[in-house]
């Protein structure tokens, strides 16, 4: 039941969009927000739980100081005011993914308020660079819920015979970043939404407070869109599209909602204030809960926790330790890395600045890091229709692979197989290498045996090489590669063949 839509270009002839973005970020703390449980992604269900995050009767929350430091750093980086006195509140509603049937969140006393983020936006018409300042209304701290898996053909709740709950995610620290309404973007609204989330993600990565992996849910975006007739003084009714899980989807969701809402307004219908679900497959949204059905969350101050009163000296120290503003940071990294202007522009356009910075920090050369993020990984990302940052591989893993290539343990070909394994979820690089047996066949001993066997099997080829037809060496190299299942270094095999035959390799110069 697709709803009618208006052609995007036509929307803009009659309406002006207003956007609002709510981004939820899971912090990468070692333990949960209110208990000591581990937060590692992908552990077996319900193995990272305790009485506190299971909400057992009698259990009590205690705040994670590292998480509080992270949110203050985020607030500072977003130019917010850090409240001298802030409070947790309970948001009450019944849902089985929430073991206490309330969520510890913040309500009328958030920790960070009134900030902004400058977002670079390129106008596709004029190809001019511009900057839009997005106002930040609030940044607050809350706890994540458990994860429901609906057993059924579609994975949707309506078709499920039963649902499973994994409380490993329950209580993971979550920061919610809410923008002020973003106005006067006109046709650029979808790009602005995407650029804001991209810029925010890069900033969070530079702060090293979160994995910011949209596909794993560590960064989730809710998109609010409304339309008003051009020239109108009041804004239209908004819809909130939930859990839009990639940068591309953010852009598509805004574009679709604008087209859909325009069609309704054109037909004289009203916009229902509701939450909507985004569908990756066709880029549409569908209605969820309407405002009339919305719950009264009965917020009240969380009596199990004391007010948060950050020590001003501590906040000042956190402020001093912040990384430089994004454009200053880019300039600084450009100088450190020694890339050409063209190389740096490619890196920026690929959204790989922070990925490369993190990879370099994990122990590679800048050129080595750039080779993978702008080469093989960029190619994979394009294939999958995601950005490189959304690939399920960490900068640390990329650094490890590059180190192994550098040490001669992997060839580039083998390294690509390792990447394939990591992306397929087979584990970290060393695990993939072990499982797939991908190490370069090392030592001239083992390799020598393979070379000797190939030479013995191809006496005619040997004669041709000896006769000066050096190109024939390819046959031997191919045989050795086959024998070692591609794990040999071709150049080394070639050198060994000539060495065995006592022939000087012309190509080796």
């Amino acid at each position: 039941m697709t709803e009618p839509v208006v052609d995007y270009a036509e929307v803009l002839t009659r309406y002006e969009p207003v956007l609002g973005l709510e981004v939820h970020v899971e912090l990468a703390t070692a333990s949960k927000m209110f208990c000591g449980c581990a937060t590692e992604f992908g552990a077996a269900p319900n193995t990272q739980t305790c009485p506190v995050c299971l909400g057992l009767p009698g259990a009590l929350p205690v705040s994670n100081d590292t998480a509080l430091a992270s949110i203050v750093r985020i607030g500072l980086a977003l130019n917010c005011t850090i409240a001298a006195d802030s409070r947790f509140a309970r948001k009450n509603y019944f849902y089985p993914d929430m073991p206490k049937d309330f969520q510890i969140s913040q309500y009328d006393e958030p920790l960070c308020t009134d900030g902004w983020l400058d977002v670079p936006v390129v106008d596709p018409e004029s190809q001019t660079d511009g900057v839009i300042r997005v106002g930040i209304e609030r940044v607050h701290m809350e706890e994540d819920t458990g994860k429901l898996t609906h057993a059924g053909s579609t994975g949707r709740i309506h078709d499920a015979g039963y649902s499973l709950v994994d409380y490993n995610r329950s209580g993971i620290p979550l920061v919610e970043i809410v923008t002020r309404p973003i106005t006067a973007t006109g046709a650029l609204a979808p790009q602005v939404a995407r650029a804001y989330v991209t810029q925010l993600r890069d900033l969070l990565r530079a702060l090293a407070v979160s994995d910011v992996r949209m596909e794993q849910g560590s960064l989730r975006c809710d998109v609010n869109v409304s339309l008003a007739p051009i020239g109108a003084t009041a804004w239209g009714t908004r819809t909130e599209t939930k859990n839009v899980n990639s940068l591309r989807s953010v852009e598509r969701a805004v574009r679709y909602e604008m087209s859909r809402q325009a069609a309704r307004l054109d037909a004289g219908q009203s916009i229902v204030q509701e939450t909507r679900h985004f569908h990756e497959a066709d880029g549409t949204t569908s209605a969820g809960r309407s405002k009339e059905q919305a719950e009264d969350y009965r917020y009240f101050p969380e009596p199990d926790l004391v007010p948060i009163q950050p020590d001003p000296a501590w906040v000042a120290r956190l402020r001093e330790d912040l990384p430089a503003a994004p454009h200053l940071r880019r300039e600084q990294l450009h100088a450190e890395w020694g890339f050409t202007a063209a190389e740096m522009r490619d890196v920026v356009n690929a959204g790989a600045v922070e990925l490369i910075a993190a990879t370099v920090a994990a122990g590679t050369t800048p050129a080595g890091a750039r080779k993978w993020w702008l080469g093989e990984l960029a190619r994979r990302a394009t294939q999958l229709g995601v950005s490189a940052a959304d690939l399920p591989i960490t900068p640390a893993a990329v650094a490890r692979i590059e180190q192994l290539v550098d040490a001669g343990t992997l060839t580039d070909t083998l390294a690509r197989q390792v990447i394939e394994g990591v992306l397929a979820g087979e584990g970290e690089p060393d695990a993939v290498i072990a499982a797939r047996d991908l190490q370069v066949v090392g030592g001239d001993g083992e390799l020598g045996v393979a070379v000797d066997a190939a030479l013995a099997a191809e006496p005619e080829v040997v004669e041709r090489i000896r006769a000066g037809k050096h190109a024939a060496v390819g046959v031997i190299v191919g045989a050795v590669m086959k024998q070692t299942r591609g794990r040999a270094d071709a150049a080394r095999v070639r050198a060994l063949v000539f060495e065995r035959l006592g022939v000087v390799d012309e190509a080796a110069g």
Partner: protein
Amino acid sequence: MSPQAITRAEALTLAAQIAAGELSAREVTEAHLARIAEVDPLVGAFLHVDADGARAQADAVDAQRAAGEPLGPLAGVPLALKDVLVQRGIPTTCGSRILEGWRPPYDATVVTRLRAAGVVILGKANCDEFAMGSSTENSAYHPTRNPWALDRVPGGSSGGSAAAVAAHLAPLAIGTDTGGSIRQPAALTGIVGAKPTYGGVSRYGLVAFASSLDQAGPMARTVADTAALHEVIAGHDPRDATSIPQQWPGLRAAAEAGAAEGLTGMRIGVIAEHDGPGWDAQVRAVTADAIDRLQHLGAEVVTVSVPHVVHALAAYYLIAPSEASSNLARFDGMRYGLRVGGDDDSVAAVMSATRAAGFGPEVKRRIMLGTFALSTGYYEAYYRSAQQVRRLIADDFAAAFTHCDALVGPTSPLPAFPLGERIDDPLAMYLADLATLPASLAGLPAMSVPIGLTPAGAAPALPVGLQIIAAATADATMYRVAGALAADQQQQWGGLLLDRAPSLSGGRP
């Protein structure tokens, strides 16, 4: 000592004799288990007797002594634990059907501290469902009867704990007090019960009723035993964010100092608002005599006005139900305890049916009150106003404590009432806590000590308690006053008030 003498002995006497090897912990435990088997069918103080566990704990104490290891301060002394505190592997119901069969996988911090002190936990004491009530008639399992008159209530909600101590089923008990649930049953059964300063005893593992008010505390037959148990359970707990970061030594010493030195130099205020024609005449008369004794003991007695306490009942019945409505949300049939509904029912239907079947009428009444008070449009008028009143009451007390060391008045407006008399009249029941609510709202330490009996007439002679309230964290001051009164009574009466209670076993030692 004969088994009967053992069950009538003070906790500190038992501990001393066990430490000296004159009694075994096992002997002490067996004497109490036998007394429970004989008398508890009449009283109904316990919901669960853990005879095997108690014997094992007692044997461990005896083994420790035999090995020459140091013993904890109350090693080998039996105790009744109110069933709202979790004990690993032991059924914890909170007096509710909704938790029937649940065995918690962890120990409350109070339990951990009791174990460390060598205390033997005999079992779980009956209480009003989720500690909501003043008569223990709201237990979903059975009422508890007052050992002074079996057709009367023992008070509540810690009525099981109070009756266990008063009927000599245990020399010690842990109760919890949200609006008077330790002090009022202590008064109605002629024993001593103390509510520590809020934050003095960890709430970790105390199944929450109203988080900002709940405190666990000691109950015993003598002031010295009460102080000794208080010292064992109090102290900072990093698992409770509202726990006060200090230790609480010197409570017993303060009681002893009061006994030895009297009250010379102390100024004691009588709360003007807790006296007058609306209060039971017999209770007023006994209270007036006790206040005379305070003067006799050297205290300067003055009348003090704490004007806002007249609004304590209204404020309490908004704040406590509001917090309860949120705290009790987790009992939804999803993870533990009762579940009502079929596999084909929706989550909402199962939650609703489980809560409808599992909660008793008083719990439902308070959940509804609290849900209403927190709702949008009512929050300001109800919850926020109640918090403002709470602040005013705390300010009144703070002002009074600038010129008084302690405040006194009757613990309960009336002595033990007949079972069934008030159960259908919630407001009449709520009035039973009139005198105890103010100190709860202000977070102050307060205790009840027995001061005499109403004259026998149409009703039997029934105990009356005096409430002693001290400034926040001045728990020792309260024990000083109690210690002086107890020593004075010992001289006057030649024993405890409780010695005049019916024996229930057909004879006295």
